């Protein structure tokens, strides 16, 4: 327990010898840190498969007409890219990796509330992922519906929709169990003396996220079961030919899938909120506002799903109502951005890779966020609905936001996780390459989207070719930057210089323990500060 006072010999969690040896010591691990790493290795693997699929699409789009794949195969490639990236990378992403690793440490606990359930969540995640891969290989062929599985097409296509939706259903269970674990951990496992408003802000973000995971994910589970029931037993939920309503599918799908965007983004915002005070050596500006804004985003984020459906035939009253709510959700997001920037004001800024990644996040998130307002407004949305503009907006938020926050997090906490330091110069170079590649890849899509280039089309008129070529070149530059980053981190994990316990002069609890941490994190009772960002 965290209140143990006697001195225990330090053994890092990576060297700890438990009941199991070798690979089984990982597969059977209940230590939150090892489970966090298991998620990370799995997620990074899926991420790079998704990147390869993305590059295939970019190659296809280099020239009008068929170049390297047929239209049918293009449909399958973007569907698999979406399923992998959404359900297996960005939804679990920060929460499962850094949430698992750092939540207990940040609140002064030795593990999550239910360690075995945590291990079970990872197993389910792997089972769901295998099912998703199988859906590509079975005899009916890979699903071609897009990751959204819109009915009635998904109820009638001959591709492997049932296996893919069942995979998403199973992956949802993993998400629910992780959310449940984190909520109970935060309520019950905080170190003695740590009140809710004494917690660092990454746990606050995880808390808000966990509620979304717990409450919204069952909706997609039920929806996908209804879809399977309709395909298997001809029960008319969504297909008008059977007496169903296709808009019901969209309502149910987005009741989950819009809050899911905040499952991706809230932990990302939490990471940035940890990084900025550390590298500015300054207390976060407006601690309570940032904490409560996480809850506000989670709450309002539940109620804005209809902005995905403005052109679907929804009633006018619902359209303006959803538009109003969408504008409201921008307020707590803006509070966070203003508070991050204000925190930097008069700070002792130390320009290190995690801080630069955080700056890149803010820049890209602002572009993604403000273009989101264009999509939230009915009048402009109907002009650019289902165009490349939406693709650009979505990737600026999810990749520019969540993706860059993931990179920021791994560069920030890497010395703590592995006890080693990466090459700072190479980290900065890879960031610059990724940043240039990212903007070349996605910014042209805003422009051709406004000009009328539809999303999910494998062919296009010649007028769009220059922008498509720039976009494709950007994709390969981005991939090169990613490769450099992985090379740098893998090399550092194996043979990097030994990192001190607190290389960034952080004030939160993870920096007060050795690197890498011991099995139970705290060999001595942690000292809980009323203000976790006290740099005086």
């Amino acid at each position, binding site marked *: 327990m965290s209140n143990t006072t006697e001195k225990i010999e330090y053994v890092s969690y990576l060297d700890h010898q438990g009941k199991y040896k070798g690979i089984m010591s990982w597969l059977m691990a209940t230590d939150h840190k090892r489970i966090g790493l298991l998620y990370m290795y799995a997620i990074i693997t899926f991420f790079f498969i998704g990147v390869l699929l993305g590059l295939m699409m970019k190659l296809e789009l280099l020239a009008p007409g068929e170049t390297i794949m047929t239209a049918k195969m293009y449909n399958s490639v973007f569907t698999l890219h979406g399923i992998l990236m959404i359900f297996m990378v960005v939804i679990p992403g920060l929460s499962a990796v850094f949430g698992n690793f750092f939540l207990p440490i940040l609140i002064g606990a030795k593990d999550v509330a239910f360690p075995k359930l945590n291990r079970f969540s990872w197993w389910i995640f792997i089972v769901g992922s295998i099912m998703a891969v199988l859906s590509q290989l079975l005899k009916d062929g890979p699903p071609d519906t897009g990751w959204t599985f819109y009915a009635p097409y998904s109820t009638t296509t001959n591709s492997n929709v049932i296996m893919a939706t069942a995979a998403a259903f199973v992956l949802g269970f993993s998400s629910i169990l992780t959310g449940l674990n984190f909520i109970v951990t935060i309520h019950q496992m905080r170190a003695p003396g740590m009140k809710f408003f004494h917690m660092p802000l990454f746990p606050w973000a995880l808390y808000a996220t966990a509620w979304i995971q717990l409450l919204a994910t069952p909706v997609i589970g039920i929806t996908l079961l209804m879809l399977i029931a309709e395909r298997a037993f001809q029960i008319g939920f969504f297909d008008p030919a059977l007496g169903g309503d296709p808009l019901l599918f969209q*309502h149910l799908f987005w*009741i989950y899938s819009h809050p899911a965007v905040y499952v991706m983004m809230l932990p990302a915002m939490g990471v940035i909120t940890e990084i900025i005070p550390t590298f500015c050596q300054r207390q976060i500006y407006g601690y309570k506002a940032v904490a409560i804004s996480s809850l506000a985003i989670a*709450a309002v984020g539940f*109620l804005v799903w209809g902005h995905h459906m403005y052109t679907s035939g*929804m*009633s006018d*009253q*619902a359209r303006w109502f959803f538009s109003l709510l969408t504008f409201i959700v921008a307020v707590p997001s803006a509070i966070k951005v203003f508070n991050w920037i204000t925190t930097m004001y008069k700070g002792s800024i130390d320009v290190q890779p995690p801080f630069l990644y955080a700056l890149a996040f803010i820049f890209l998130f602002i572009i993604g966020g403000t273009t989101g307002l264009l999509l939230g407004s009915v009048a402009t949305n109907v002009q650019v609905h289902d165009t490349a503009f939406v693709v650009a907006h979505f990737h600026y938020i999810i990749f520019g936001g969540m993706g860059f926050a993931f990179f920021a997090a791994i560069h920030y906490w890497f010395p703590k996780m592995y006890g080693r330091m990466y090459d700072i110069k190479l980290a900065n170079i890879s960031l610059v390459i990724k940043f240039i590649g990212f903007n070349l890849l996605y910014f042209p899509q805003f422009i051709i989207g406004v000009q009328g280039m539809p999303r999910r089309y494998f062919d296009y008129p010649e007028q769009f070719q220059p922008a498509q070529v720039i976009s494709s070149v950007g994709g390969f530059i981005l991939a090169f930057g990613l490769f450099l980053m992985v090379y740098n981190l893998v090399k550092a994990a194996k043979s990097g210089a030994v990192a001190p316990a607190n290389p960034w002069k952080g004030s939160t609890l993870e920096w007060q323990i050795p690197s890498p941490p011991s099995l139970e994190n705290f060999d001595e009772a942690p000292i809980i500060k009323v203000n976790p960002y006290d740099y005086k």
Partner: protein
Amino acid sequence: MANNTTHTIEYKTLVKILLILLFLTFITISVTSIHLGALTVTVALLIAGAKAYLVLSNFMHLKYESLLLRILVAMVFVLFALILVITFIDYAFR
């Protein structure tokens, strides 16, 4: 903490609640024969909500839990109600 304390509810009380639940189920079925139009779903959900309240507070001992926990559970139901109402803004005006 509230969850470290054992609470025993008398069988008599449990049976009373069970009877109320059965009665509410009977009402749920009975009202289907009355044409309430747009209110059909509202009435069904109100009865279901009352039943859920009885189960949560008595069978699941929520009434012995801390105020924070009760508020959190209540918020879940408020959220559920909000989602239903907003969905029906579409269906009612389409």
